[in-house]
Protein backbone atom coordinates (compact mmCIF):
# COMPACT_ATOMS: atom_id res chain seq x y z
CA UNK A 1 0.00 0.00 0.00
CA UNK A 2 2.68 2.35 1.13
CA UNK A 3 4.75 1.63 -1.93
CA UNK A 4 1.92 2.40 -4.34
CA UNK A 5 1.29 5.89 -3.00
CA UNK A 6 5.01 6.54 -2.96
CA UNK A 7 5.23 5.55 -6.58
CA UNK A 8 2.26 7.63 -7.52
CA UNK A 9 3.75 10.63 -5.84
CA UNK A 10 7.02 10.38 -7.71
CA UNK A 11 5.12 9.81 -10.92
CA UNK A 12 3.18 12.94 -10.33
CA UNK A 13 6.34 14.88 -9.62
CA UNK A 14 7.89 13.63 -12.85
CA UNK A 15 4.70 14.55 -14.67
CA UNK A 16 4.78 18.03 -13.30
CA UNK A 17 8.43 18.42 -14.19
CA UNK A 18 7.72 17.22 -17.67
CA UNK A 19 4.84 19.65 -17.99
CA UNK A 20 7.03 22.47 -16.68
CA UNK A 21 9.76 21.86 -19.24
CA UNK A 22 7.11 21.68 -21.94
CA UNK A 23 5.73 24.97 -20.69
CA UNK A 24 9.13 26.58 -20.71
CA UNK A 25 9.75 25.40 -24.24
CA UNK A 26 6.38 26.75 -25.26
CA UNK A 27 7.13 30.03 -23.58
CA UNK A 28 10.44 30.27 -25.46
CA UNK A 29 8.66 29.62 -28.73
CA UNK A 30 5.98 32.26 -28.12
CA UNK A 31 8.66 34.76 -27.21
CA UNK A 32 9.53 35.26 -30.86
CA UNK A 33 6.13 36.75 -31.51
CA UNK A 34 6.75 39.98 -29.67
CA UNK A 35 10.41 40.30 -30.63
CA UNK A 36 9.77 42.46 -33.75
CA UNK A 37 7.65 44.86 -31.75
CA UNK A 38 10.08 44.93 -28.85
CA UNK A 39 13.06 45.65 -31.12
CA UNK A 40 11.17 48.50 -32.79
CA UNK A 41 10.00 50.00 -29.52
CA UNK A 42 13.52 49.72 -28.09
CA UNK A 43 15.11 51.44 -31.08
CA UNK A 44 12.59 54.22 -31.54
CA UNK A 45 11.42 54.88 -28.00
CA UNK A 46 13.23 53.18 -25.12
CA UNK A 47 16.92 53.43 -26.10
CA UNK A 48 16.73 57.07 -27.24
CA UNK A 49 14.80 57.86 -24.10
CA UNK A 50 17.79 56.77 -22.04
CA UNK A 51 19.85 59.22 -24.11
CA UNK A 52 17.22 61.88 -23.43
CA UNK A 53 17.73 61.27 -19.72
CA UNK A 54 21.48 61.57 -20.20
CA UNK A 55 21.12 64.82 -22.18
CA UNK A 56 18.96 66.29 -19.48
CA UNK A 57 21.75 65.79 -16.94
CA UNK A 58 24.77 67.11 -18.88
CA UNK A 59 25.70 70.64 -19.90
CA UNK A 60 25.89 69.81 -23.61
CA UNK A 61 25.95 66.62 -25.68
CA UNK A 62 29.53 67.13 -26.87
CA UNK A 63 31.44 67.78 -23.66
CA UNK A 64 29.07 65.69 -21.56
CA UNK A 65 29.84 67.30 -18.21
CA UNK A 66 27.43 66.18 -15.55
CA UNK A 67 25.49 69.16 -14.20
CA UNK A 68 22.87 67.53 -12.01
CA UNK A 69 19.48 69.18 -12.07
CA UNK A 70 20.56 72.57 -13.36
CA UNK A 71 18.93 71.98 -16.76
CA UNK A 72 15.64 71.39 -15.01
CA UNK A 73 16.08 74.48 -12.86
CA UNK A 74 16.90 76.56 -15.94
CA UNK A 75 13.81 75.17 -17.64
CA UNK A 76 11.58 76.00 -14.70
CA UNK A 77 12.94 79.54 -14.68
CA UNK A 78 12.36 79.97 -18.40
CA UNK A 79 9.44 82.38 -18.87
CA UNK A 80 8.31 80.86 -22.17
CA UNK A 81 8.17 77.40 -20.62
CA UNK A 82 6.30 78.71 -17.60
CA UNK A 83 3.72 80.41 -19.73
CA UNK A 84 3.32 77.32 -21.91
CA UNK A 85 2.95 75.07 -18.86
CA UNK A 86 0.46 77.42 -17.21
CA UNK A 87 -1.63 77.71 -20.38
CA UNK A 88 -1.63 73.97 -20.91
CA UNK A 89 -2.61 73.37 -17.28
CA UNK A 90 -5.41 75.94 -17.48
CA UNK A 91 -6.71 74.35 -20.63
CA UNK A 92 -6.65 70.87 -19.09
CA UNK A 93 -8.40 72.06 -15.94
CA UNK A 94 -11.25 73.54 -17.97
CA UNK A 95 -11.50 70.93 -20.70
CA UNK A 96 -10.93 67.61 -18.92
CA UNK A 97 -13.84 67.75 -16.44
CA UNK A 98 -16.18 68.75 -19.28
CA UNK A 99 -14.80 65.95 -21.46
CA UNK A 100 -15.73 63.48 -18.72
CA UNK A 101 -19.10 64.85 -17.60
CA UNK A 102 -20.68 65.64 -20.99
CA UNK A 103 -20.04 62.21 -22.56
CA UNK A 104 -21.19 60.51 -19.36
CA UNK A 105 -24.45 62.46 -19.54
CA UNK A 106 -24.88 61.60 -23.23
CA UNK A 107 -24.16 57.93 -22.57
CA UNK A 108 -26.68 57.73 -19.72
CA UNK A 109 -29.36 59.35 -21.87
CA UNK A 110 -28.57 57.10 -24.83
CA UNK A 111 -29.05 54.01 -22.65
CA UNK A 112 -32.70 55.01 -22.18
CA UNK A 113 -35.48 54.17 -24.61
CA UNK A 114 -35.23 57.28 -26.74
CA UNK A 115 -36.53 57.59 -30.30
CA UNK A 116 -33.83 57.89 -32.98
CA UNK A 117 -31.12 57.10 -30.49
CA UNK A 118 -28.95 55.20 -32.94
CA UNK A 119 -28.99 58.24 -35.23
CA UNK A 120 -28.01 60.46 -32.30
CA UNK A 121 -25.24 58.07 -31.39
CA UNK A 122 -23.87 58.04 -34.94
CA UNK A 123 -23.89 61.84 -35.15
CA UNK A 124 -22.28 62.36 -31.76
CA UNK A 125 -19.49 59.91 -32.60
CA UNK A 126 -18.86 61.16 -36.14
CA UNK A 127 -16.47 64.05 -35.24
CA UNK A 128 -14.07 61.34 -34.05
CA UNK A 129 -13.45 60.52 -37.70
CA UNK A 130 -13.12 64.06 -39.02
CA UNK A 131 -9.58 65.46 -39.32
CA UNK A 132 -9.34 68.72 -37.38
CA UNK A 133 -7.83 70.43 -40.41
CA UNK A 134 -11.12 69.95 -42.23
CA UNK A 135 -13.25 71.90 -39.78
CA UNK A 136 -10.97 74.73 -38.71
CA UNK A 137 -12.42 76.72 -41.61
CA UNK A 138 -15.83 76.63 -39.98
CA UNK A 139 -14.33 77.66 -36.66
CA UNK A 140 -12.72 80.60 -38.39
CA UNK A 141 -15.98 81.64 -40.01
CA UNK A 142 -17.66 81.42 -36.62
CA UNK A 143 -15.12 83.06 -34.35
CA UNK A 144 -13.18 85.43 -36.60
CA UNK A 145 -13.27 89.06 -35.55
CA UNK A 146 -15.68 89.70 -38.43
CA UNK A 147 -17.22 86.28 -37.98
CA UNK A 148 -20.70 84.99 -37.46
CA UNK A 149 -20.67 84.80 -33.66
CA UNK A 150 -19.69 88.44 -33.44
CA UNK A 151 -22.44 89.35 -35.91
CA UNK A 152 -24.92 87.69 -33.61
CA UNK A 153 -23.42 89.35 -30.55
CA UNK A 154 -23.78 92.77 -32.15
CA UNK A 155 -27.28 91.99 -33.39
CA UNK A 156 -28.25 91.13 -29.83
CA UNK A 157 -26.83 94.40 -28.55
CA UNK A 158 -23.47 93.08 -27.31
CA UNK A 159 -19.98 94.05 -28.34
CA UNK A 160 -17.74 92.08 -30.64
CA UNK A 161 -15.01 89.97 -29.13
CA UNK A 162 -11.85 89.11 -31.00
CA UNK A 163 -12.13 85.46 -30.06
CA UNK A 164 -8.74 84.20 -31.17
CA UNK A 165 -6.84 87.19 -29.85
CA UNK A 166 -8.32 87.72 -26.42
CA UNK A 167 -8.66 85.95 -23.11
CA UNK A 168 -11.59 84.09 -24.63
CA UNK A 169 -9.31 82.32 -27.08
CA UNK A 170 -9.05 79.20 -24.94
CA UNK A 171 -12.83 78.91 -24.99
CA UNK A 172 -12.95 78.46 -28.77
CA UNK A 173 -10.33 75.72 -28.47
CA UNK A 174 -12.23 74.04 -25.63
CA UNK A 175 -15.29 73.87 -27.89
CA UNK A 176 -13.29 72.33 -30.72
CA UNK A 177 -11.65 69.87 -28.31
CA UNK A 178 -15.01 68.79 -26.89
CA UNK A 179 -16.55 68.49 -30.33
CA UNK A 180 -13.75 66.14 -31.35
CA UNK A 181 -13.39 64.07 -28.15
CA UNK A 182 -16.89 63.66 -26.73
CA UNK A 183 -17.75 60.76 -29.06
CA UNK A 184 -14.85 58.52 -28.07
CA UNK A 185 -15.46 58.99 -24.35
CA UNK A 186 -19.18 58.45 -24.85
CA UNK A 187 -18.53 55.04 -26.46
CA UNK A 188 -16.39 54.05 -23.48
CA UNK A 189 -19.11 55.06 -21.03
CA UNK A 190 -21.82 53.30 -23.01
CA UNK A 191 -19.78 50.09 -23.00
CA UNK A 192 -19.25 50.40 -19.23
CA UNK A 193 -22.92 51.14 -18.55
CA UNK A 194 -23.95 48.14 -20.62
CA UNK A 195 -21.63 46.02 -18.47
CA UNK A 196 -23.39 46.78 -15.19
CA UNK A 197 -25.36 43.68 -14.16
CA UNK A 198 -29.08 44.32 -14.56
CA UNK A 199 -29.98 42.42 -11.36
CA UNK A 200 -28.15 44.94 -9.22
CA UNK A 201 -29.90 48.03 -10.57
CA UNK A 202 -33.24 46.21 -10.48
CA UNK A 203 -32.70 45.14 -6.90
CA UNK A 204 -31.91 48.72 -5.98
CA UNK A 205 -35.10 49.91 -7.68
CA UNK A 206 -37.11 47.29 -5.74
CA UNK A 207 -35.56 48.54 -2.51
CA UNK A 208 -37.00 51.92 -3.39
CA UNK A 209 -33.80 53.68 -4.37
CA UNK A 210 -34.42 56.69 -6.62
CA UNK A 211 -32.71 57.19 -9.93
CA UNK A 212 -30.11 59.58 -8.53
CA UNK A 213 -29.35 57.35 -5.57
CA UNK A 214 -28.98 54.31 -7.83
CA UNK A 215 -26.69 56.32 -10.03
CA UNK A 216 -24.31 57.54 -7.34
CA UNK A 217 -24.36 54.49 -5.08
CA UNK A 218 -24.35 51.72 -7.66
CA UNK A 219 -23.42 52.92 -11.12
CA UNK A 220 -20.58 55.27 -10.20
CA UNK A 221 -18.56 52.60 -8.34
CA UNK A 222 -19.00 50.30 -11.32
CA UNK A 223 -18.01 53.08 -13.67
CA UNK A 224 -15.07 54.27 -11.60
CA UNK A 225 -12.37 52.54 -13.61
CA UNK A 226 -13.91 53.82 -16.84
CA UNK A 227 -14.12 57.32 -15.40
CA UNK A 228 -10.44 56.95 -14.49
CA UNK A 229 -9.53 55.83 -17.98
CA UNK A 230 -11.56 58.55 -19.68
CA UNK A 231 -9.93 61.13 -17.43
CA UNK A 232 -6.42 59.91 -18.30
CA UNK A 233 -7.33 59.84 -21.97
CA UNK A 234 -8.76 63.35 -21.80
CA UNK A 235 -5.66 64.65 -20.04
CA UNK A 236 -3.47 63.16 -22.78
CA UNK A 237 -5.73 64.59 -25.46
CA UNK A 238 -5.69 67.97 -23.78
CA UNK A 239 -1.89 67.90 -24.12
CA UNK A 240 -2.42 67.25 -27.82
CA UNK A 241 -4.65 70.26 -28.31
CA UNK A 242 -1.70 72.08 -29.84
CA UNK A 243 -2.94 70.58 -33.08
CA UNK A 244 -6.17 72.54 -33.01
CA UNK A 245 -4.41 75.73 -31.95
CA UNK A 246 -1.76 75.40 -34.64
CA UNK A 247 -4.27 74.80 -37.39
CA UNK A 248 -6.39 77.75 -36.27
CA UNK A 249 -3.75 80.30 -35.41
CA UNK A 250 -0.43 79.15 -36.87
CA UNK A 251 3.05 79.35 -35.37
CA UNK A 252 2.55 82.50 -33.33
CA UNK A 253 -0.75 82.35 -31.47
CA UNK A 254 -2.20 84.76 -28.95
CA UNK A 255 -0.46 84.68 -25.57
CA UNK A 256 -3.00 82.50 -23.79
CA UNK A 257 -2.76 79.90 -26.58
CA UNK A 258 1.00 79.45 -26.37
CA UNK A 259 1.18 75.79 -25.35
CA UNK A 260 3.88 73.31 -24.38
CA UNK A 261 4.09 71.90 -27.89
CA UNK A 262 4.74 75.42 -29.24
CA UNK A 263 7.59 75.65 -26.78
CA UNK A 264 8.91 72.25 -27.85
CA UNK A 265 8.68 73.18 -31.54
CA UNK A 266 10.74 76.31 -30.92
CA UNK A 267 13.33 74.25 -29.06
CA UNK A 268 13.44 71.77 -31.95
CA UNK A 269 14.02 74.69 -34.32
CA UNK A 270 16.93 75.96 -32.27
CA UNK A 271 18.07 72.38 -31.50
CA UNK A 272 18.31 73.12 -27.79
CA UNK A 273 18.79 69.52 -26.66
CA UNK A 274 19.06 70.43 -22.98
CA UNK A 275 15.70 72.16 -22.84
CA UNK A 276 14.08 69.55 -25.09
CA UNK A 277 15.27 66.63 -22.98
CA UNK A 278 14.54 68.13 -19.60
CA UNK A 279 11.09 69.30 -20.77
CA UNK A 280 10.27 65.84 -22.14
CA UNK A 281 11.33 64.17 -18.90
CA UNK A 282 9.55 66.69 -16.72
CA UNK A 283 6.33 66.17 -18.65
CA UNK A 284 6.74 62.41 -18.54
CA UNK A 285 7.07 62.59 -14.76
CA UNK A 286 4.07 64.89 -14.45
CA UNK A 287 1.97 62.52 -16.58
CA UNK A 288 3.01 59.56 -14.43
CA UNK A 289 2.11 61.45 -11.26
CA UNK A 290 -1.31 62.38 -12.67
CA UNK A 291 -1.96 58.79 -13.75
CA UNK A 292 -0.73 57.46 -10.39
CA UNK A 293 -3.03 59.77 -8.43
CA UNK A 294 -6.01 58.81 -10.58
CA UNK A 295 -5.21 55.14 -10.01
CA UNK A 296 -5.12 55.64 -6.26
CA UNK A 297 -8.49 57.40 -6.34
CA UNK A 298 -9.89 54.59 -8.47
CA UNK A 299 -8.64 51.95 -6.05
CA UNK A 300 -10.42 53.74 -3.19
CA UNK A 301 -13.69 54.08 -5.10
CA UNK A 302 -13.81 50.73 -6.85
CA UNK A 303 -12.73 48.62 -3.89
CA UNK A 304 -16.20 47.24 -3.24
CA UNK A 305 -16.69 45.64 -6.63
CA UNK A 306 -13.24 44.27 -7.33
CA UNK A 307 -13.69 40.75 -8.62
Amino acid at each position, binding site marked *: MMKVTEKKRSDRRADRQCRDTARIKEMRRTRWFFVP*SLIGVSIFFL*APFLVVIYYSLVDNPISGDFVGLSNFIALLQNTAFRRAAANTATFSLIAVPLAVIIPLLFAILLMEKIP*MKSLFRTILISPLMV*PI*ASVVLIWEVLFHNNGVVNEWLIAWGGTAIDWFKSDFSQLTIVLLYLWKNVGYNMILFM*AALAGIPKEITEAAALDGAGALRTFFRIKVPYLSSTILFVTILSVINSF*KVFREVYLLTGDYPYDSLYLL*QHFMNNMFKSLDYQK*LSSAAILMGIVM*MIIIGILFLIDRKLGKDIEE
Partner: protein
Amino acid sequence: MKMKKIHGLARTALLGIATVFLGAMSVLFITPIVLTITNSFMSQSEIASNYGKIFESVTSAGTYVADRVNLKIIPDLVSFSQYETVLLKSPDYLLKFWNSVILVVPIVIFQTLVALLAAYGFARFDTKWRSGIFFAYIILMLMPYQVTLVPNYLVADWLGILDTRWAIILPGIFSPFAVFILTKFMRRIPSSVIEAAKLDGAGEWQIFTKICAPMSGGIVASVAILVYIDYWNMVEQPLVLLTNEAVDLHPLSVFLSKINAGDAGIAFSVASIYMIIPLLIFLYCEDSLVEGVSYSGGLKG
Protein backbone atom coordinates in the same frame (compact mmCIF):
# COMPACT_ATOMS: atom_id res chain seq x y z
CA MET B 1 -51.97 52.17 -9.28
CA LYS B 2 -52.47 55.91 -9.65
CA MET B 3 -48.99 56.56 -8.25
CA LYS B 4 -47.54 54.33 -10.91
CA LYS B 5 -49.36 56.20 -13.67
CA ILE B 6 -48.06 59.58 -12.49
CA HIS B 7 -44.60 58.08 -12.26
CA GLY B 8 -44.97 56.83 -15.82
CA LEU B 9 -46.03 60.26 -17.05
CA ALA B 10 -43.09 61.95 -15.37
CA ARG B 11 -40.83 59.40 -16.97
CA THR B 12 -42.27 60.05 -20.42
CA ALA B 13 -41.81 63.78 -19.93
CA LEU B 14 -38.20 63.27 -18.86
CA LEU B 15 -37.54 61.05 -21.86
CA GLY B 16 -39.09 63.77 -24.07
CA ILE B 17 -36.73 66.37 -22.62
CA ALA B 18 -33.80 64.00 -23.07
CA THR B 19 -34.74 63.43 -26.70
CA VAL B 20 -34.99 67.14 -27.43
CA PHE B 21 -31.67 67.75 -25.67
CA LEU B 22 -29.86 64.99 -27.57
CA GLY B 23 -31.47 66.14 -30.81
CA ALA B 24 -30.24 69.70 -30.27
CA MET B 25 -26.76 68.43 -29.42
CA SER B 26 -26.73 66.25 -32.53
CA VAL B 27 -27.60 69.25 -34.68
CA LEU B 28 -24.75 71.22 -33.09
CA PHE B 29 -22.30 68.36 -33.55
CA ILE B 30 -23.07 67.70 -37.18
CA THR B 31 -23.25 71.34 -38.27
CA PRO B 32 -19.50 71.85 -38.86
CA ILE B 33 -19.38 68.74 -41.05
CA VAL B 34 -22.47 69.67 -43.04
CA LEU B 35 -21.40 73.28 -43.51
CA THR B 36 -17.97 72.28 -44.78
CA ILE B 37 -19.51 69.98 -47.35
CA THR B 38 -22.29 72.31 -48.53
CA ASN B 39 -19.91 75.26 -48.74
CA SER B 40 -17.62 73.24 -50.95
CA PHE B 41 -20.29 73.51 -53.62
CA MET B 42 -20.16 77.31 -53.70
CA SER B 43 -18.47 79.09 -56.52
CA GLN B 44 -15.45 81.27 -55.85
CA SER B 45 -17.50 84.44 -56.17
CA GLU B 46 -20.13 83.24 -53.75
CA ILE B 47 -17.45 82.41 -51.18
CA ALA B 48 -15.92 85.81 -51.73
CA SER B 49 -19.17 87.65 -51.25
CA ASN B 50 -20.13 85.67 -48.14
CA TYR B 51 -16.82 85.31 -46.35
CA GLY B 52 -14.78 88.08 -47.92
CA LYS B 53 -14.46 89.84 -44.61
CA ILE B 54 -12.82 86.80 -43.05
CA PHE B 55 -10.65 85.38 -45.78
CA GLU B 56 -9.38 88.57 -47.31
CA SER B 57 -7.23 86.65 -49.77
CA VAL B 58 -10.22 85.45 -51.80
CA THR B 59 -11.25 88.94 -52.76
CA SER B 60 -9.58 90.82 -55.53
CA ALA B 61 -10.28 94.35 -56.68
CA GLY B 62 -13.82 94.68 -57.88
CA THR B 63 -15.28 91.56 -56.30
CA TYR B 64 -18.49 92.10 -54.45
CA VAL B 65 -18.22 91.60 -50.70
CA ALA B 66 -21.31 91.68 -48.56
CA ASP B 67 -21.23 93.95 -45.52
CA ARG B 68 -22.02 91.08 -43.27
CA VAL B 69 -20.59 87.63 -43.12
CA ASN B 70 -23.19 85.08 -44.14
CA LEU B 71 -22.95 81.55 -42.86
CA LYS B 72 -24.85 79.75 -45.56
CA ILE B 73 -26.14 76.26 -45.21
CA ILE B 74 -27.24 75.90 -48.79
CA PRO B 75 -25.35 77.63 -51.59
CA ASP B 76 -27.35 79.85 -53.95
CA LEU B 77 -26.07 77.93 -56.89
CA VAL B 78 -24.62 74.46 -56.66
CA SER B 79 -21.32 74.58 -58.44
CA PHE B 80 -18.57 72.06 -58.88
CA SER B 81 -16.06 74.69 -59.88
CA GLN B 82 -14.09 74.37 -56.64
CA TYR B 83 -13.69 70.66 -57.14
CA GLU B 84 -12.72 71.23 -60.73
CA THR B 85 -9.99 73.61 -59.61
CA VAL B 86 -8.71 71.24 -56.94
CA LEU B 87 -8.75 68.08 -58.99
CA LEU B 88 -7.76 69.35 -62.42
CA LYS B 89 -6.02 72.68 -62.12
CA SER B 90 -3.94 72.64 -58.97
CA PRO B 91 -1.79 69.51 -58.69
CA ASP B 92 -0.30 70.81 -55.43
CA TYR B 93 -3.27 69.69 -53.35
CA LEU B 94 -3.39 66.29 -54.96
CA LEU B 95 0.30 65.95 -54.18
CA LYS B 96 -0.30 66.69 -50.50
CA PHE B 97 -3.18 64.26 -50.47
CA TRP B 98 -0.85 61.66 -51.92
CA ASN B 99 1.69 62.52 -49.21
CA SER B 100 -0.92 61.71 -46.59
CA VAL B 101 -1.66 58.37 -48.24
CA ILE B 102 2.02 57.38 -48.50
CA LEU B 103 2.59 58.18 -44.83
CA VAL B 104 -0.55 56.64 -43.42
CA VAL B 105 -1.03 53.41 -45.37
CA PRO B 106 2.28 51.71 -44.37
CA ILE B 107 1.77 52.76 -40.75
CA VAL B 108 -1.72 51.26 -40.63
CA ILE B 109 -0.71 47.99 -42.30
CA PHE B 110 2.53 47.37 -40.45
CA GLN B 111 1.49 48.66 -37.04
CA THR B 112 -1.43 46.25 -37.15
CA LEU B 113 0.73 43.33 -38.30
CA VAL B 114 3.52 43.87 -35.79
CA ALA B 115 0.94 44.37 -33.07
CA LEU B 116 -0.97 41.23 -33.97
CA LEU B 117 2.19 39.14 -33.53
CA ALA B 118 3.15 40.91 -30.33
CA ALA B 119 -0.35 40.56 -28.91
CA TYR B 120 -0.19 36.81 -29.40
CA GLY B 121 3.13 36.70 -27.58
CA PHE B 122 1.83 38.77 -24.70
CA ALA B 123 -1.53 37.04 -24.41
CA ARG B 124 -0.29 33.44 -24.64
CA PHE B 125 1.79 33.62 -21.48
CA ASP B 126 1.68 36.06 -18.67
CA THR B 127 5.07 35.88 -17.00
CA LYS B 128 6.63 38.53 -14.83
CA TRP B 129 8.87 39.71 -17.65
CA ARG B 130 6.09 39.91 -20.15
CA SER B 131 3.70 41.81 -17.95
CA GLY B 132 6.57 44.16 -17.12
CA ILE B 133 7.19 44.86 -20.79
CA PHE B 134 3.46 45.21 -21.40
CA PHE B 135 3.25 47.72 -18.56
CA ALA B 136 6.08 49.71 -20.19
CA TYR B 137 4.07 49.71 -23.42
CA ILE B 138 1.04 51.11 -21.61
CA ILE B 139 3.10 53.89 -20.05
CA LEU B 140 4.57 54.66 -23.46
CA MET B 141 1.10 54.73 -24.99
CA LEU B 142 -0.05 57.25 -22.40
CA MET B 143 2.79 59.67 -23.05
CA PRO B 144 1.96 62.83 -25.01
CA TYR B 145 3.90 63.84 -28.14
CA GLN B 146 5.95 66.32 -26.15
CA VAL B 147 7.60 63.33 -24.50
CA THR B 148 7.83 60.81 -27.37
CA LEU B 149 8.84 63.18 -30.17
CA VAL B 150 12.21 63.94 -28.58
CA PRO B 151 13.42 60.29 -28.67
CA ASN B 152 11.90 59.92 -32.16
CA TYR B 153 13.81 62.96 -33.34
CA LEU B 154 17.11 61.74 -31.88
CA VAL B 155 16.86 58.32 -33.54
CA ALA B 156 15.85 59.82 -36.86
CA ASP B 157 18.89 62.08 -36.61
CA TRP B 158 21.24 59.15 -35.85
CA LEU B 159 19.85 57.02 -38.64
CA GLY B 160 20.02 59.91 -41.07
CA ILE B 161 16.34 59.67 -41.91
CA LEU B 162 15.41 63.10 -40.59
CA ASP B 163 13.45 65.06 -43.22
CA THR B 164 12.42 61.84 -44.96
CA ARG B 165 9.11 59.98 -44.72
CA TRP B 166 10.81 57.18 -42.78
CA ALA B 167 11.18 59.48 -39.78
CA ILE B 168 7.40 59.35 -39.38
CA ILE B 169 6.62 55.91 -40.74
CA LEU B 170 9.08 53.84 -38.66
CA PRO B 171 8.12 55.12 -35.18
CA GLY B 172 4.49 54.95 -36.32
CA ILE B 173 4.81 51.24 -37.08
CA PHE B 174 6.08 50.49 -33.58
CA SER B 175 3.65 52.72 -31.71
CA PRO B 176 2.20 50.56 -28.91
CA PHE B 177 -1.46 51.52 -29.27
CA ALA B 178 -2.49 48.56 -31.45
CA VAL B 179 -0.51 46.12 -29.28
CA PHE B 180 -2.49 47.27 -26.27
CA ILE B 181 -5.96 46.71 -27.72
CA LEU B 182 -5.12 43.46 -29.52
CA THR B 183 -3.51 41.94 -26.42
CA LYS B 184 -6.60 42.75 -24.41
CA PHE B 185 -8.70 41.01 -27.01
CA MET B 186 -6.49 37.93 -27.35
CA ARG B 187 -6.36 37.38 -23.62
CA ARG B 188 -10.07 36.61 -23.83
CA ILE B 189 -9.62 33.78 -26.31
CA PRO B 190 -10.36 30.72 -24.16
CA SER B 191 -7.26 28.64 -23.44
CA SER B 192 -9.32 25.50 -24.08
CA VAL B 193 -9.38 26.41 -27.78
CA ILE B 194 -5.59 26.65 -27.82
CA GLU B 195 -5.13 23.46 -25.77
CA ALA B 196 -7.37 21.57 -28.19
CA ALA B 197 -5.29 22.78 -31.13
CA LYS B 198 -2.12 21.70 -29.35
CA LEU B 199 -3.54 18.20 -28.81
CA ASP B 200 -4.15 18.07 -32.53
CA GLY B 201 -0.44 18.71 -32.99
CA ALA B 202 -0.55 22.35 -34.03
CA GLY B 203 2.61 24.38 -33.48
CA GLU B 204 2.66 27.94 -32.17
CA TRP B 205 2.77 29.45 -35.65
CA GLN B 206 -0.19 27.35 -36.71
CA ILE B 207 -2.16 28.25 -33.60
CA PHE B 208 -1.45 31.89 -34.40
CA THR B 209 -2.27 31.84 -38.11
CA LYS B 210 -5.11 29.31 -38.05
CA ILE B 211 -6.87 30.21 -34.80
CA CYS B 212 -5.91 33.39 -32.98
CA ALA B 213 -5.37 35.71 -35.95
CA PRO B 214 -8.62 34.74 -37.73
CA MET B 215 -10.56 35.01 -34.46
CA SER B 216 -9.28 38.58 -34.10
CA GLY B 217 -10.48 39.63 -37.56
CA GLY B 218 -13.14 42.07 -36.38
CA ILE B 219 -11.01 43.73 -33.76
CA VAL B 220 -8.08 44.01 -36.19
CA ALA B 221 -10.34 45.96 -38.55
CA SER B 222 -11.36 48.38 -35.83
CA VAL B 223 -7.77 48.84 -34.64
CA ALA B 224 -6.75 49.58 -38.22
CA ILE B 225 -9.49 52.22 -38.47
CA LEU B 226 -8.43 53.86 -35.21
CA VAL B 227 -4.77 53.93 -36.25
CA TYR B 228 -5.77 55.30 -39.65
CA ILE B 229 -7.81 58.18 -38.28
CA ASP B 230 -5.11 59.05 -35.77
CA TYR B 231 -2.44 59.40 -38.45
CA TRP B 232 -4.75 60.92 -41.06
CA ASN B 233 -5.13 63.75 -38.54
CA MET B 234 -1.43 64.10 -37.69
CA VAL B 235 0.15 67.51 -37.26
CA GLU B 236 2.87 67.34 -34.61
CA GLN B 237 5.14 64.72 -36.19
CA PRO B 238 5.47 66.34 -39.65
CA LEU B 239 6.09 69.75 -38.09
CA VAL B 240 9.02 68.42 -36.08
CA LEU B 241 10.35 65.61 -38.27
CA LEU B 242 9.86 67.07 -41.76
CA THR B 243 11.46 70.50 -41.90
CA ASN B 244 13.56 72.52 -44.35
CA GLU B 245 13.04 71.25 -47.90
CA ALA B 246 11.06 68.30 -46.58
CA VAL B 247 8.00 70.51 -46.02
CA ASP B 248 7.06 69.37 -49.52
CA LEU B 249 6.41 65.98 -47.95
CA HIS B 250 3.89 67.40 -45.48
CA PRO B 251 0.53 65.65 -45.45
CA LEU B 252 -2.66 67.48 -46.26
CA SER B 253 -3.60 67.64 -42.57
CA VAL B 254 -0.83 70.18 -42.04
CA PHE B 255 -1.06 71.85 -45.42
CA LEU B 256 -4.80 72.55 -45.14
CA SER B 257 -4.28 75.34 -42.63
CA LYS B 258 -2.02 77.08 -45.14
CA ILE B 259 -4.66 76.82 -47.84
CA ASN B 260 -7.12 78.31 -45.42
CA ALA B 261 -5.00 81.40 -45.16
CA GLY B 262 -4.02 81.63 -48.80
CA ASP B 263 -6.76 80.26 -50.98
CA ALA B 264 -9.98 80.04 -49.03
CA GLY B 265 -11.97 79.69 -52.23
CA ILE B 266 -11.07 76.06 -52.66
CA ALA B 267 -10.29 75.28 -49.02
CA PHE B 268 -13.79 73.96 -48.37
CA SER B 269 -13.57 71.45 -51.18
CA VAL B 270 -10.10 70.27 -50.15
CA ALA B 271 -11.35 69.94 -46.57
CA SER B 272 -14.35 67.94 -47.79
CA ILE B 273 -12.21 65.62 -49.87
CA TYR B 274 -9.93 65.05 -46.91
CA MET B 275 -12.70 64.13 -44.48
CA ILE B 276 -14.99 62.23 -46.79
CA ILE B 277 -12.82 59.11 -46.79
CA PRO B 278 -12.78 58.58 -43.00
CA LEU B 279 -16.47 59.52 -42.86
CA LEU B 280 -17.39 56.88 -45.44
CA ILE B 281 -15.32 54.30 -43.57
CA PHE B 282 -17.17 55.35 -40.41
CA LEU B 283 -20.64 55.00 -41.92
CA TYR B 284 -19.66 51.62 -43.31
CA CYS B 285 -17.96 50.23 -40.18
CA GLU B 286 -19.49 52.15 -37.28
CA ASP B 287 -20.13 49.03 -35.22
CA SER B 288 -16.66 47.65 -35.56
CA LEU B 289 -15.20 51.06 -34.72
CA VAL B 290 -17.36 51.22 -31.60
CA GLU B 291 -16.17 47.75 -30.64
CA GLY B 292 -12.56 48.78 -31.04
CA VAL B 293 -13.01 51.88 -28.93
CA SER B 294 -14.79 49.86 -26.25
CA TYR B 295 -11.82 47.52 -26.09
CA SER B 296 -9.45 50.41 -25.56
CA GLY B 297 -11.28 51.29 -22.33
CA GLY B 298 -9.77 50.30 -19.01
CA LEU B 299 -6.12 49.68 -18.36
CA LYS B 300 -6.41 46.55 -16.32
CA GLY B 301 -7.48 44.38 -19.25
